[in-house]
């Protein structure tokens, strides 16, 4: 029986409906939901992930990471995350584990593909020889503030890149391209940092807390005194007197402190020793100029250089 014109049109229409979607541009996928504990990791995820990711940082760049203000939105974010990035080395131990437990998101639990401990493979300093609270608020696996090491950013970026590729292999081409661009930016600035390091080598600083130890060590400088007698332990009058004595004896010119610890005590010690107080952020977004990790490092180098009267230009 011959097929009528109407039937042919209907058949053609049906065929078109079947075939055309295969050639039509595919609808954009939902972006990967990435949750990071600190802005450094969040910004790296944004820079490498590009349009394929939607990122949230749980902490603000200005917060003391040992006492992050836990809020309802954090639990909601974690419950929806496809990828979770943490610094590790117990940096987030005071507030994160219970959130991960309650979020009940199987994709991001420890050991799942969507969980990334960014300290994996990092050679930590300050690993305690023995574990005891008589040594203060020590981190069992070592100093966790390696985001402030001039070499730390590359390590973090590698971990973030690897995690993104693992969770979203379809985005590999974009992630590889963005990671290479980021590394190129980093290499350009590292030259300036290395030049400054040659001029700062051997100089001594005082710190309030151990968060700048990596930064100081990488610049070949020395922490001559710590205002906290032990990590997390507020100083008493005897500790303060000892710090002042040491700073004078060692010719310490600079006190490094974060915003959360830049108190009248630090100002008083500076006045008594003639040292300059240099307030540095301890994370991305910790200052208006610390908009990403490379800018954070640039700004930290610049402020230290200025304190010693050394000429240094940020990018």
């Amino acid at each position, binding site marked *: 029986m011959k097929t009528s014109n109407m039937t042919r049109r209907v058949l053609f229409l049906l065929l078109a409906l079947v075939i055309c979607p295969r050639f039509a541009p595919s609808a954009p996928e939902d972006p990967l939901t990435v949750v990071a504990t600190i802005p450094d990791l969040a910004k790296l995820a944004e820079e490498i992930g590009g349009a394929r990711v939607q990122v949230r940082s749980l902490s*603000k760049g*200005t*917060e*003391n990471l*040992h*006492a*992050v*203000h836990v*809020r*309802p*939105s954090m*639990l*909601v*974010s974690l*419950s*929806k995350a496809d990828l979770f990035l943490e610094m590790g080395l117990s940096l987030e131990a005071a507030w994160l584990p*219970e*959130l991960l*437990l*309650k979020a*009940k998101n199987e994709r991001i639990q420890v050991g799942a593909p969507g969980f990334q401990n960014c300290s994996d493979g990092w050679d930590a300093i300050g690993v305690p020889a023995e574990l005891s*609270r008589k040594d*203060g*608020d020590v981190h069992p696996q070592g100093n966790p503030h390696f985001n402030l090491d001039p070499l730390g950013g590359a390590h973090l970026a590698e971990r973030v890149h690897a995690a993104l590729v693992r969770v979203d292999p379809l985005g590999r081409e974009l992630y590889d391209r963005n990671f290479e661009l980021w590394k190129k930016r980093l290499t350009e600035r590292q030259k300036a940092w290395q030049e400054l390091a040659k001029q700062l080598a051997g100089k001594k600083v005082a710190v309030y807390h151990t968060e700048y130890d990596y930064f100081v060590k990488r610049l070949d400088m020395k922490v001559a005194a710590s205002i906290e007698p032990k990590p*997390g*332990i*507020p100083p008493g009058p005897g500790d303060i007197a000892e710090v002042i004595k040491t700073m004078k004896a060692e010719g310490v010119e600079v006190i490094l402190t974060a*915003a*959360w610890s830049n*108190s009248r005590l630090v100002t008083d010690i500076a006045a008594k020793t003639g040292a300059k107080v240099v307030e540095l952020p301890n994370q991305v977004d910790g200052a208006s100029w610390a908009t990403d990790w490379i800018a954070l490092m640039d700004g930290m180098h610049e402020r230290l250089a200025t304190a010693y009267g050394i000429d240094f230009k940020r990018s």
Partner: protein
Amino acid sequence: MHTYRRIRPCIALGGQRLGFYSFAILSSLSLATAQRAEVASPGAPARGGLGQSTRFDNEFNPAISLAADLLFDWMEFDGPSEDGQNLSLRRVDLLVADWIDPNAFVWATIAYEEGELGLDETAMEYVGLPGNHSLRGGRFFIDFGKQMQMHIEQLRTIDRPLVLRDYLGEELAADGLQWDNWFGVGDATLVRFSLGAFSDVSGGGHHHDEESDEVDPTLQVADRKEADDLGFTARLTAMSDVGENGTIQYGTSARFLPDFSFDQPGTDLTAKNQNNAVYGLDLTYGWVSDDGVKRWSVGGEALLFTGDLSAALDDNGTPANAADDFIVTYDDSVTGSYWFVDHGWTLNDSAGVQYSIIQEPEVGESRASELDLYYTRQLSEFLRLRVGLTFAELQHGEDSVRLAFQLTGFVGPHGHGLNW
């Protein structure tokens, strides 16, 4: 025996050798089965091994931690009670916790308090249910309001607010089951609810006249009861981000005690078929500065305690004749509340004021109130010193003033889960 019976037909058929081999094979199979588990005597329940470890290994040990709470206080009474000071080890908590398997964890709190050692909490929580549901069973603190879930060393003040102590108890741990669930609303709000059923959720929440030499009837809950006579709790709460720095929480709670009796100790006198309930509304707002250093918290809870609240022994006008005594119960509704403001200005220093007022659950209008002023200094993350000044006013009782110093130390991973 069973094996022997099976063999007999083989032997009867003339297959003696076959029967012997059958016996040998069957015997060796049963021996192999017994050796898969730890060796057990005949008839003892079979149990799996110790999970790739022996009885003497330290691997897979639970987390153990300790909290110790010392109190030194001085009290002055506006009445016949003796003024003076006291120094006490108020409380020690030994907490043991660990995962049983990927879906369940267990914790136990052994507490020393006021000279007595006891089991405060032992419960298992099963988190293998779909979604955000979880099920908790055992002995644990009830989920009511903002503070009844907390151990005393976790509080903002030295003692729990007056209204909670009086209507619910100093601490209220009960044996039961609780179902919890939470879900997000939008990006910045989460809603949580729980429903609990308990064998006895009376706690210490009835007023006892400490000045009187008389012994009041005591609240008793039957060991065995109908399902709808179990004690119940319910809580619904929501928390939201407020701007970049604030959090608000609001909630409602209920505790039902549907069936109990008041029994007069030393007699057969009893008043059965009693019931009461406590309802609560809570509201808390917290604000933290960008650097996390400065903090403000304000909030409070309002409670309604209703039903058969307390009982007394009535001597029927004949004190010498105990035979005609009877128990009189007070069916009433009373209200109470507490409100606080707390401010932290460094990471280590905070201070606040808390006011609590109650209608006392006894006959007649009677009020009591407490005003607490307190300062807290974190000597380190794990050592805390608190100074508190409390003014207590009792309409029927002695007013008092107390100055107290509390020193609390924590050793190990001493945590009680998400505080929400």
